[in-house]
């Protein structure tokens, strides 16, 4: 329409986007305020000076670094496991015919409808029985694979041309060799999408860690932050510093892999 002037749409788009992100901007600002600035009414909008007290409290005066490390370990293990298991399963469902393959795929996708709240009590009892509650393992094992991951990878391999694999098969490669040497290297877009979405989900999980973990040393960053806020009700700068540090990894992964993330959400990962 208009080429030279900046589009008038900015007048609509700027305030709209501001409503969504301004709270986060203020989250960062408030993490640099003093307790005095946040514990008065109305609270400050802009910090008077960059005060690092909040970060000092959360990094030096709490187990936050430990919780952060726990979250890195748990999310990292979940991402690696899902990349391996979901891509293998997706490849099998897309390319091979074997006993029960169709009904199993339908069942797997249907499990996405089962609310976690329904399964959480028995899942807790299972882990209690094998003595795994209150360990990081309890957080990893139920998420080693996911219905969404299998769905994504199956859809990706179905839309993926077969010629490459067939050539390798004719050359006498086994299914496993074909998968690991020929298929996986070209499946990078789908793997990246799966990694991004899995990391964000795993990092942000609160319900299961809240149920499964009881000792502070094994908290994930989400559980830790929640209890930290309960114990430091008046220390809002520290709480805000904690939320900033907790949000940074997912924000970084999101900004870095935004395209893949959107593709994963819309189920439209192409080669």
């Amino acid at each position, binding site marked *: 329409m208009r080429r030279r002037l900046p589009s008038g749409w900015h007048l609509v788009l700027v305030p709209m986007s501001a409503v969504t992100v301004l709270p*986060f901007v203020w989250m960062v600002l408030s993490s640099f305020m003093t307790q005095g600035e946040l514990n008065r009414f109305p609270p400050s909008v802009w910090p008077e000076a960059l005060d690092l007290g909040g970060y000092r409290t959360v990094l030096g005066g709490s187990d936050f670094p430990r919780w952060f490390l726990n979250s890195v370990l748990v999310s990292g293990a979940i991402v690696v496991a899902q990349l391996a298991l979901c891509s293998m399963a997706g490849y099998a469902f897309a390319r091979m015919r074997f006993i029960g393959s169709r009904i199993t795929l339908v069942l797997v996708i249907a499990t996405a409808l089962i609310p976690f709240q329904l399964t959480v009590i028995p899942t807790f009892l299972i882990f209690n029985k094998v003595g795994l509650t209150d360990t990081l393992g309890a957080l990893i094992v139920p998420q080693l694979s996911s219905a969404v991951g299998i769905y994504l990878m199956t859809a990706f391999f179905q839309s993926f041309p077969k010629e490459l694999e067939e050539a390798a098969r004719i050359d006498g490669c086994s299914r496993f060799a074909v998968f690991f040497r020929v298929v996986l290297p070209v499946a990078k877009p789908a793997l990246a999408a799966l990694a991004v979405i899995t990391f964000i989900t795993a990092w942000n999980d609160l319900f299961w860690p809240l149920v499964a973990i009881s000792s502070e040393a094994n908290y994930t960053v989400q559980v830790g932050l929640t209890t930290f806020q309960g114990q430091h009700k008046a220390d809002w700068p520290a709480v805000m510093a904690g939320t900033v540090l907790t949000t940074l990894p997912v924000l970084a992964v999101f900004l870095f892999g935004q395209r893949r993330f959107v593709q994963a959400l819309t189920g439209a990962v192409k080669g």
Partner: protein
Amino acid sequence: MSNVQALSRTETAAPKRRPDRRKPADNVTGWSFAGPATVVILGFSLIPMAWALMLSFTDSDLMTPGRNVGLDNYRALFQDPVFYQALRNTGLLVVLYIPASLIAGLLVAVLLNRKVRGIGFYRACFLVPYIASATSAGLLMGYIFDRDFGLMNGLFVKLGLPVQGLLSSPSQAMFVLTLIFFWTRFGFSVVIYLAAIQEISKEVLEAAAIDGASRWATFWHIIVPSVRSMTIFLGVWGLIDALQFFDLIVTTTKGGPANSTVTIVYYVWQLAFSFFTAGYGAAVAYVLFAGTLLLIVAGLLVARRRGAMR
């Protein structure tokens, strides 16, 4: 996620291309690829599902094996005022959130579907609340909507409005939580709608423009019908999402004040892990699950009938 139908369609089409000649070796390879992932998913869903059903007929307290109490838990449910309160709170969330996320999602998606400088940045903005954890969003919003220190009341005072109870008020807390929930979730609708709008063929839109269709007519007669399947998907997804509303409550109101923000899922969690009445909690969870399935089936039937009338 949004194309389950397409997936099963190609599945059923497969045998036509390749006659079904399974060899035992194929089964071994197939299952060694698909087995591990499948076992984890089905193992952590079907077994707990059956177990939860059995639990719902007991008075289990998580620690000791429960006694069988038959249908007592389900009977108790109908006389439990907190259950009814949780039902009302969850209902309010569903009724407000689903239409809001569909309407706002589509409108924002239409606005974002244009070529202006920095559109990528605008699009990213709408997903930031969606990717932030409920803990971060809850703590941040809990402070912004705090009655005594919050920015919101600060803004009200600046505008000369009376200070509100917000998250501390039994009559306002659930509405504030719904607003916060909406803020964190509706970016998903935007993304899904945006992808669907971008699939609409340019020719159709150009033809409409040549015929002199107004913006409104284009929106109402071309865009809305074209994204219909996504509207159904988002409606179902939003329902599942809203019925599982939990995390933000933990990090803001913890169900208070006076149970005014207890949702069914939060109640299940309280029953099992705070009050140690896991059997009863399992019964509540099962009623929630059955209700969800009923609502989804009813919703899909209505959508199908509407579609048939067109």
